[in-house]
């Protein structure tokens, strides 16, 4: 009886948190169907912002920049970061420690400080623009890849590489077909993290972008005073739904992977 109540209570708490996390998102989705340019007036239901989206070149360009930036920075970070994780794991204790400390700097430093420091440095040898933003994003993304891949490197079985070589696989083939698959879990989540972080970033982009380049974030920031175009709500809703679907699919794929011994465990009276 008490257990029932507790279980009910904890479900209720999860619900409250979900409500907290998703209420602003619900507001934005509702706004995307609002037939009024004002944020505070409900002008009836419409889907015209979704249609207008197709003709808004400014949004299209910003969206393209955002995705290109996210993809490029995540991909380059994946390559550099995975190699780095392999390398750092085999280093001696002191250099290992030093490298991990440096890796932690962009994660521990305030975004604003990272952004400003990069900006102050990069303007000394190149003009700010897409390139400088890309450099900045790669810089804060590599640590996410390293931290995601590192645990897999530590549990990786190196002798498989030697076994592969022994059985006649070429060195490159042994590396790509025997070593990388062992890291794939960490690499996928590292790439996904990096992609998300890049999409989500505003502060570092804001300080390193210079004039002329805009991601969705910086474009929206620039529009706060003038008023947000409703097309943006429509776009955000679409991205949100797309990601929701992707996550659902990804989450349901390896569903039946129950740990052995679990069935004999049962519940501990709770």
């Amino acid at each position, binding site marked *: 009886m008490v257990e029932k109540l507790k279980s009910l209570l904890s479900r209720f708490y999860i619900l409250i948190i979900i409500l907290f996390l998703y209420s602003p998102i619900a507001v934005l989705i509702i706004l995307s169907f609002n037939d009024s340019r004002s944020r505070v007036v409900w002008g009836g239901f419409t889907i015209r912002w979704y249609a207008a989206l197709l003709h808004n070149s400014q949004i299209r360009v910003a969206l393209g920049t955002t995705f290109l930036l996210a993809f490029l920075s995540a991909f380059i970070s994946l390559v550099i970061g995975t190699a780095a994780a392999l390398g750092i794991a085999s280093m001696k204790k002191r250099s290992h420690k030093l490298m991990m400390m440096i890796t932690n700097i962009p994660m521990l430093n305030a975004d604003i400080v990272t952004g400003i420091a990069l900006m102050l440095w990069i303007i000394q040898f190149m003009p700010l623009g897409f390139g400088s933003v890309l450099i900045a994003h790669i810089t804060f993304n590599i640590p996410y890849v390293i931290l995601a891949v590192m645990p897999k490197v530590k549990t990786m079985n190196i002798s498989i590489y030697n076994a592969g070589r022994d059985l006649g696989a070429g060195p490159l083939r042994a590396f790509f077909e025997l070593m990388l698959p062992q890291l794939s879990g960490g690499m996928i989540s590292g790439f996904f993290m990096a992609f998300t972080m890049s999409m989500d970033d505003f502060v570092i982009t804001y300080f390193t972008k210079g004039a002329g380049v805009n991601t969705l974030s910086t474009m929206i920031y620039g529009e706060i005073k003038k008023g947000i175009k409703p097309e943006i709500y429509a776009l955000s809703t679409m991205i949100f739904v797309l990601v929701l679907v992707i996550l659902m699919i990804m989450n349901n794929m390896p569903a039946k992977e129950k740990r052995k011994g679990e*069935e*004999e*465990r*049962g*519940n*501990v*009276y709770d």
Partner: protein
Amino acid sequence: MGDTILELKNISKSFDGKKILDDLCLNIEKNEFVTLLGPSGCGKSTLLRIIGGFVKPDHGQVYFEGGDITSLPPERRQVHTVFQKYSLFPHMNVADNVAFGLKLKKKSRDYIAEKVRYAMRLVNMEGYEERMTTSLSGGQQQRIAIARAIVNEPKMLLLDEPLGALDLKLRHEMQRELMRIKQEVGITFVYVTHDQEEALTMSDRIVVMNQGIIQQMGTSKSIYDEPQNAFVADFIGDSNIINGIMIRDRLVMIHGVEVECVDEGFDPNEAVDVVIRPEDLVIGKKDSGFTNGIVTNLIYKGAYYDISVAAGDYEWSVQSNVPAAVNSEVGLFIDPENIQIMKKPRSSDEEVIDKLG
């Protein structure tokens, strides 16, 4: 037998619709060393977890010293568990691990120190008090786990395959150690294992389990010498189990040959399982034993030879002190007293042996 400490009455438990324990009854005496023995998935661990309070049975009651403890949570039972994976608290040092239960009971500092010292000595781990548990070897960790349980003076200690993760040599050493500890603290041990040798070495009484029911209960000797069904015979030690027909009392037909035995009380011409231990078979000259066979394999095992002899459609396993040439034809001898006749299993529960192959 008024000394029953634990009584399990009609215990049943299912997980996800799969029956793990089926109407099981078991009494455990004070000071006994009882071993629950069986293959993985036979329900022995679940039974232990029911005694420990981690699993609530679907049906049935658990009585401890006469009181019903079926619904009592684990922290209120006078029973402690030693887990297979040691399960020491990784954020505490050895002494704090051992003192955990006593500190919860708010015992005095001196009392705790005294008890911890005693427990550490009991498991031969003096001097390791300040070490972190993660720096210990598997055997050392298991000693600490035992000390951590014993120090609370439980009336019963549950051990869930505690030596399963150790290598063979260490396992033997720990077996002796456990028996010594048992003797010194004088409490009831309920031990779970799938290792028959471990069970035979340590137990006062062995409970052989399979498919959620008790197959046989008894001393090591009675279980080994007189298995009651083919499952027990096969699971405990190596066995030749072949089909036979009981002609009459004290006479059984194997391979179309009538062989003398000492068993009685079967129906005339009843189909039976005949069990013969490999060490009880003797190899001799052709045509001199109860059957002839061709030697198909010979493996030197140090103390004896493991010899396979094909006779008819059955391959006998023989342990012999003398070798026999492969491909030679030999005769097999058996002392009537060493033949075990068993009824054929009737219920599907007992037929696992067929599935095990």
